[in-house]
């Protein structure tokens, strides 16, 4: 695993190891949670993930990493999170920028999984044209 892999970051998240996550983040770290239009600094981010995982949405630690790409000072990771009850899974793409061995920015995009039948019909419509 290279120095700029985020796989360990997500292992720490699943294991609720907040100090280990804290150690990976630069002091001026910014977390952009795009769907909310909000940007969090390091302290607010740590509070957010802790409260989310331990109290508000414990299912948020139930995810699978689909792909990780590293280039330059960037790591792009794709993951899928299972939703609560019968809600569809959510896909996330996280673009992380590093300074040395610390993460300075995480930019998080997310979208819902579309019903497979609906997806198939849409893709099939292009094959017929």
């Amino acid at each position, binding site marked *: 695993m290279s120095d700029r892999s985020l796989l360990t970051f997500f292992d720490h998240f699943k294991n609720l190891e907040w100090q280990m996550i804290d150690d990976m983040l630069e002091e001026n770290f910014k977390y952009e949670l795009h769907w909310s239009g909000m940007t969090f600094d390091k302290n607010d981010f740590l509070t957010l993930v802790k409260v989310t995982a331990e109290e508000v949405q414990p299912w948020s630690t139930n995810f699978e990493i689909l792909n990780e*790409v590293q280039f330059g000072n960037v790591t792009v990771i794709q993951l899928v999170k299972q939703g609560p009850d019968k809600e569809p899974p959510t*896909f996330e793409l996280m673009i992380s920028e590093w300074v040395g061995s610390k993460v300075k920015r995480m930019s998080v*995009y997310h979208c819902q*999984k*579309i019903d*497979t039948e609906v997806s198939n019909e*849409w893709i099939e419509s292009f094959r017929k044209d």
Partner: protein
Amino acid sequence: MTATELSKKLMQLWQMAEWDSLEEFLSEDIELIILGIDPCITGKNNVLKVLKSAAKTSFSYDTKINKLLADENYAVFQLDSNRPTSFLKSPIPKNWSKEDGILREINFFKTAILLEWNSKKLLKITTIDTIVHPPEHVTENFISQY
């Protein structure tokens, strides 16, 4: 040309709908992965059909490239735009219907596009499109939980 230059050129051609020139950048077995849509779309002709069908929708007049990060083989674009519907006009979640108040006439989207290059040919495009919810929705569905 570096991946940065190739990616800038590709994005320019895509936005200007110059399909003949754009096609030259695509590998024969290119994959288009739209996160949330399963399966992925493969092959130059199929991918081109999808890009063409949604060119005007995907890039609105005010689409802004916020950031481009790239090196030899990869590039990732981060875009902002105001649109009536999703990037590439792909299907939207059921609960986005106007009655539920999520999808409006015009919506603010943030979009990431990851490009994977090899020998000056594009092997893979991965896109994800995120609707930025209005503050009242965020207050109701997010902040109130904490």
